[in-house]
């Protein structure tokens, strides 16, 4: 029997039991839909993390004090474990692969301008920091050397901060604002950066000289909680991080074999770390989703077995008029494959649709990749073949006379 005829027969038989076919497909539909949307969520969060990390700047290396790196917070204790200005200057002086270097002091607080107020985060940085992070000033100026030396009360503000503190007719540059009651002069306005990879507002930020934030706002003169460095080129990132490691170990008397009281992270390392965790997550989610595909496959096998039993006389008759076991096998196998492929098709539609819903309703970063659709689809096909084979084989092995006499 040719494929077209088999196809027609299989479609008809599914059509005769519409509700049953649909219910049987449900497992596959749910399975495929969840595999696709799980992979989409995984892929989406991975993409967003990647773009966020790449948004860190160019060829970035970060140094944190403390022995362990826990979710971005470094734990520091004791002077041997701390990073100080001397360390920073030493790196600048003797690491040839380092291009820019800047400490970071973080704070946040209430900002008041006239009758408007706003809450934002404040970062104390060197002028070079803006180069490391590729931050551009739209109007006004950057920090001068004297600003850093004298801990001047000047700041550069992001677009969101400007919008919330000043009306559209006021040029923020030159205006006075108060950050935690300390008066500052706005010397620059940052170019708009928009949303970050996780949906956060990158324009809701205030930069001030490092010494200003460190001394006036944090009341700390010694410890640096984070150093941002950029390597001279992408190829030199690893070399730079090795130079820094060697230098800091020497300065702190730590041998090669001991755990250092500081942490050096390069941008590439961070990307790798996040992608590997998100890969694990993705595999886990897709694995759970594929269980429902297998359950769906068992559903197909179950219904196909029922169908074979119900249609034993039909099988007997087909054999009596000349169908070979092979013909019967093909007929039922095609029916099972059609069931799971149809389920796969509907499931793929649902999967893509629900991924879109995640994007629009929950604002999640979701990416439907074509490979996930192909993967889920071929998985559905394999399940159809695998779980259809046994019932179809059972039908094919029937003896015509017994099948005809079956009641």
């Amino acid at each position, binding site marked *: *029997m040719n494929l077209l005829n088999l196809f027609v027969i299989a479609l008809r038989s599914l059509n*005769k039991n519409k509700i049953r076919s649909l219910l049987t497909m449900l497992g596959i539909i749910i399975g495929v839909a969840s595999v696709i949307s799980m992979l989409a969520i995984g892929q989406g969060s991975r993409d967003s993390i990647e773009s966020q990390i790449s948004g860190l700047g160019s060829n970035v290396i970060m140094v944190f004090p403390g022995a362990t790196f826990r979710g971005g917070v470094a734990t520091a204790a004791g002077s041997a474990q701390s990073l100080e200005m001397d360390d920073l200057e030493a790196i600048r002086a003797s690491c040839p692969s380092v291009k820019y270097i800047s400490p970071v002091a973080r704070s946040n607080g209430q900002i008041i301008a006239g009758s408007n107020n706003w809450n934002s985060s404040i970062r104390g940085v060197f002028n070079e920091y803006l180069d490391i992070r590729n931050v551009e000033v739209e109007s006004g100026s950057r920090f001068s050397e004297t600003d850093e030396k004298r801990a001047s009360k000047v700041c550069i503000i992001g677009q969101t901060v400007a919008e919330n503190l000043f009306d559209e007719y006021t040029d923020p540059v030159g205006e006075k604002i108060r950050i935690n009651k300390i008066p500052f002069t706005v010397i620059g306005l940052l170019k708009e950066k928009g949303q970050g990879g996780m949906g956060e507002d990158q324009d809701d930020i205030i930069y001030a000289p490092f010494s200003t934030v460190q001394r006036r706002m944090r009341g700390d003169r010694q410890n640096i909680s984070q150093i941002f460095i950029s390597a001279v080129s992408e190829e030199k990132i690893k070399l730079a991080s090795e130079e820094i490691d060697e230098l800091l170990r020497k300065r702190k008397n730590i041998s090669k074999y001991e755990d250092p009281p500081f942490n050096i992270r390069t941008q590439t390392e961070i990307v790798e770390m996040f992608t590997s965790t998100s890969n694990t997550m993705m595999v886990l989610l897709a694995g759970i989703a594929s269980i429902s595909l297998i359950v769906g496959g068992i559903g197909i096998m179950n219904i196909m077995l029922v169908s074979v039993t119900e249609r034993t*006389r039909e099988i007997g008759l*087909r054999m*009596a*008029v000349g169908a070979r076991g*092979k013909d019967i096998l093909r007929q039922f196998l095609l029916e099972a494959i059609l069931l799971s492929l149809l389920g796969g098709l509907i499931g793929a539609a649902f999967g893509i649709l629900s991924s879109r819903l995640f994007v629009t309703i929950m604002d999640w970063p979701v990416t439907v990749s074509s490979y996930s659709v192909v993967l889920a689809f071929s998985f559905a096909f394999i399940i159809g073949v695998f779980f259809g084979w046994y019932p179809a084989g059972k039908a094919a092995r029937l003896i015509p006379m017994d099948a005809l006499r079956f009641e």
Partner: protein
Amino acid sequence: MKEQDQERKKIISVSNLSKIYDMGAVKVHALRGIDMDIKEGEFTAIMGHSGSGKSTLLNILGCLDVPTEGKYYLDDADVSHLNKNQLARMRNRKIGFVFQTYNLLPRTSALENVELPMLYNPEIRRKERKDRAMNSLELVGLTDWSGHFPNQLSGGQQQRVAIARALVNDPVIMLADEPTGNLDTRTSFEVMKIFQELNEKGITIALVTHEADISKFAARNILFRDGRISKVTIIKNIKDAREELEKLPPEDEEMEEEKINKLI
């Protein structure tokens, strides 16, 4: 007639055919050494009580089953030791089988039911398949019913569709196991009329029946008893189904039913 018989080709030739059903504890000897020939153009009726082995023989002749022992030649080919696929091919190309219970595919039109055997013959293309199925339906007088589903047809009509299906692959022999067993007298005679017409066209037919008056429509009667042939009779006054039908009192109710069916 007799001299002609000698020249005719043997369509079926069995010798020392036996069939034992092994039921574990008991062995049922359904056939105990059958020798018989069926020649081209013959119309044979196989008679006998229930359980005498008629169906067993017909199933073996129809390649639906294999003998335990003995030789079976169908159209000059030894089919006693064919494998499953070869038997399927034989059933498809050489045999037309008619069952007592019609065995039509439900929710499938009469035409498509008749087309079914040709679906398993890759040599027949779509167009030819339709034409041959229509011709076959015409031979049994059901041209107007080709689009009807089995549940829209009377028992007699369903059996005629089954006969059309058996004819469609141009078999060397038509085998019918109690084809009138589920039908009333009038419809039985109508079915027998079709068999007689087909036989007149030269088609070889062997049918199984336990009703004596049905067997009288065939030229030769073979009587079975306990898995053996006990008697072979050549019928001198073969009944003519057309005449017999005319002799039946007109059955108005049935006529009405036919009319109503046609309206549907």
